């Protein structure tokens, strides 16, 4: 094999070493062992009060060693990549098993890899002055948008994660994963009110993305627009009503309502509200939902997952019928299903588990304007903060940061932020119209599960739900609400 991976170059690792470490990991038996080497370099910059107040760079490197024995997982890691420490960690992880030593398969096989983010110069190695320019331009553009914009914070962060995953059955996968993101947050003030706005985006892109495709001015204006809009927002209604979700980031609905509940670990353990529902109707026939880790440049995409398995596009719901789960190696093996390449982890310190990549609903046939026109009284929500779900009872929330009333088929007044709450297994059965305008989010999503954060993407077309509970405060009905 012709290989010169990062860790061979920088740490003098050899295939021999890898075999020795895997043998130590299987020294007490076990069905499978793997090593995850990670070298992460990162930069962050922030501008506040028009000053670059903070600049930071960091390096984090280590190796995580996992041993699987039946349903049991032993895990140990070290941030010292010397052979003695890695062997020590391997022997610690090995203690999960109790039996005669096993021998890892001889030799490694490296599969042809995708190249979803072929950056020539990773942004983490680009000139810092160019990154300073980005945050300063964002600050200027947000302030220029409107004199009522009083505070602006712009952040830029990038990283390059070099990984090498080797498994006792011969897996050998390496990847170099760039990730960059910009955020602009604003506070607007008038005589009586204050309001906030925020916007951001990025992906597995090089620095030039922010000088061409999505500029600091783009994010700055969007952030400032939201803050100004919110100055005059009125109280949100409360109770059950029709809800129209705009395209893009509102796809966080799918992430919470169905995505987490379809992660294979919860279904293997029968702790998900979706357990046992494969082949059953869980959404209206207008809904087809996929998880797709293979979209070029996307924040949630990966050439290989953190277990060295190729990512893929997985259909979760097809025309309303539940089709499949998102699996990692352990769940796939224990459930007798295919590994969908969704085994992810936050870092070498963490055990991989099934996670989403980019999760979205396919476009439908409805004209977004017709969707709005069909609503007599309801809420049109276009931007969200974040969400959360209780996997077991299926209840999920997501919080609108930009939303409007719909009155007699027209979008009218902006309303204050409100949480929307629903029940995962039946929320999508109430989808009555799906727009032809599928959009993915700008690339700012981070998903947390069991204390592990990983970057993800979401997306959806304009979508109408016939009933959802809106958590506003309005006591009086401004125009027929809360009947």
């Amino acid at each position: 094999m012709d290989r010169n991976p990062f860790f061979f170059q920088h740490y003098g690792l050899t295939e021999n070493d890898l075999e020795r470490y895997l043998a130590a990991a299987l020294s007490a038996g076990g069905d499978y062992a793997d090593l995850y080497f990670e070298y992460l370099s990162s930069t962050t910059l922030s501008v506040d009060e028009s000053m670059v107040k903070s600049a930071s760079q960091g390096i984090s490197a280590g190796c995580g060693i996992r041993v699987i024995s039946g349903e049991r997982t032993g895990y140990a890691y070290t941030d010292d990549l010397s052979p003695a420490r890695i062997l020590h960690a391997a022997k610690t992880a090995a203690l999960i098993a109790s039996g005669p030593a096993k021998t890892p398969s001889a030799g490694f096989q490296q599969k042809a890899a995708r190249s979803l983010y072929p950056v020539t110069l990773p942004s983490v190695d680009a000139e810092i002055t160019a990154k300073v320019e980005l945050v300063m331009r964002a600050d200027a553009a947000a302030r220029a948008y409107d004199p009522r914009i009083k505070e602006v914070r712009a952040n830029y962060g990038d990283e390059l994660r070099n990984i090498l995953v080797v498994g006792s059955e011969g897996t050998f996968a390496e990847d170099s994963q760039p990730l960059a993101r910009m955020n602009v947050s604003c506070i607007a003030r008038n005589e009586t009110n204050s309001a906030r706005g925020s916007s951001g985006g990025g992906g597995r892109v090089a620095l030039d993305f922010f000088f061409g495709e999505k500029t600091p001015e783009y994010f700055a204006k969007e952030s400032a627009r939201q803050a100004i809009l919110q100055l005059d927002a009125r109280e949100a209604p409360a109770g059950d009503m029709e809800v129209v979700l705009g395209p893009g980031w509102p796809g966080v609905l799918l992430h919470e309502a169905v995505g987490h509940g379809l992660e294979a670990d919860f279904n293997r353990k029968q702790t998900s509200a979706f357990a046992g529902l494969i082949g059953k109707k869980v959404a209206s026939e207008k809904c087809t939902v996929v998880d797709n880790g293979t979209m070029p440049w996307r924040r949630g995409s990966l050439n290989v997952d953190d277990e060295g398995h190729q990512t893929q596009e997985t259909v979760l719901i097809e025309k309303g019928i539940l089709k499949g789960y998102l699996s990692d190696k352990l769940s796939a093996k224990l459930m007798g299903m295919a590994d969908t390449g969704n085994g992810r982890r936050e870092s070498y310190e963490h055990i991989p588990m099934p996670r989403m990549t980019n999760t979205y609903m396919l476009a439908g046939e409805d004209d977004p304007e017709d969707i709005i026109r069909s609503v007599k009284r309801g809420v049109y929500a276009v931007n969200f903060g974040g969400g959360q779900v209780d996997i077991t009872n299926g209840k999920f929330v997501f919080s609108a940061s930009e939303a409007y009333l719909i009155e007699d088929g027209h979008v009218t007044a902006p309303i204050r932020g409100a949480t929307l709450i629903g029940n995962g297994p039946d929320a999508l059965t109430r989808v009555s119209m799906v727009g032809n305008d599928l959009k993915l989010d700008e690339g700012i999503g981070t998903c947390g599960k069991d204390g592990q954060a990983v970057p993800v993407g979401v997306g959806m077309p304009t979508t109408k739900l016939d009933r959802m509970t809106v958590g506003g405060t309005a006591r009086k009905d401004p125009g027929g609400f809360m009947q």
Partner: protein
Amino acid sequence: MISTVQQESAPETTTDLKQLAHDLVLRAMSGGATAAECVIREGDEFSTLVRLGQVETLKEAGSKSIGLRVFRGQRAASTHSSDFSREGLDRMLNSALELAKITSEDPFGGIPEPSQLGSLSGDLDLYSPDVYSLPGEERISYARRAEKAALDSDPRIKNSEGGSFDAATGHKILANSHGFIGEYQRSYCSVAAVPIAQDEKGAMQRDYWYSVARNLDRLESPEHIGKMAAQRALRRLGARKVKTQHVPVVLDPLVATSILQHLFEGVNGDSVYRGASFLAGKLGQLIAAPNVTVIDDGTIVGGFGTSPFDGEGIPTRRTVVIEKGLLNSYLLNTYTAKKLGLQTTANASRGLAGTPGIGPGNYFLQQGARTPPQLIGDVKEGLYVTEFLGMGVNLVTGDYSRGASGLWISGGELTYPVEEITVAGNLKDMFMNISEIANDLEFRGAVASPTIRIDGLTVGGE
């Protein structure tokens, strides 16, 4: 058979790491810095999860990392690394010195004055090596006993996400160019259970309970934890929605703690000086009901939020944040204190990277005299909240809207469980409308609250 492996080589001693921090500060100064600060953190962690009686995961590891913050006049930058090799440290140092050339001059920047620096004396009882004293089998047994107690407590507990036992120790060293060098160690252990209850229709509800302590002796029994967790899951079975209405809301201590955390963010100097807090400009004003007194105290012996010095090397202290409803003090670090023309409250929190933030010491709402059942007994119709979902809190405006579940209060009694509802209001009004505070304050972390009652909220449902 499970046992632990001993370290093959002795870890570097404390003296070595203190010397290293000190040396890096000196090297930064001779490399052109006008002030410098170095932090080193090392720690060990152990965790195990037992599910349906079987060990599911065992994790054990140690780690170490270093961070450096340098100033060139009024320009600051920071770097961090997990690479303690000569080259790794050189690179971290040089990057910091280079990076500090491109940031802006900020007249309010800098490390604290020498006279402010120091460390609380005496034993703060933060570290007990006994969290690691249990043999491997015993640790697993803690997790197993907690889960078993939950599973055995009722036939409707049919499944489980497991029982767990965790232990960790941490060691922190801070050195700066005024000659400050401080260090402390802290330990932690916890036991938890997450059972799942199922009703006759197959509907499932999950809940949890846990105990956390700085040493093993103070940990509650795994059996107690398991039983509590089971009761919490069982009482959620058969939950329904309610109609949209305005009723008194009683928050159990865990969810009341989340409200206190929003208050913490509101008095956090970083949001205050930027006008990003609904409490900016309110110092000395009435911002809460007269029965509300909130204290931050980083000096409580054995506390979860206790440390001998803050993230900048200033001895921790006790600060009355709200006194009988009046906003008495913000919580500040050196930078935000200078920005606001005030004195630091020694609440600097220092991660490895970036500028110091602001974190709580032991931060709590002073308890009242009545019991939680007495509080509930006063409510004719209302909501007892046991869980909030989501992040619908806007600290700029105070707007508050979150998903909730809990129990319905009727005629002064807890009756049926409710879920898939929202609770909404505005934090400004919510603090003014804390009409009752119970007598059940208990620390399960650095932030703690007793049961409270808030009036005037909107419950959103059918």
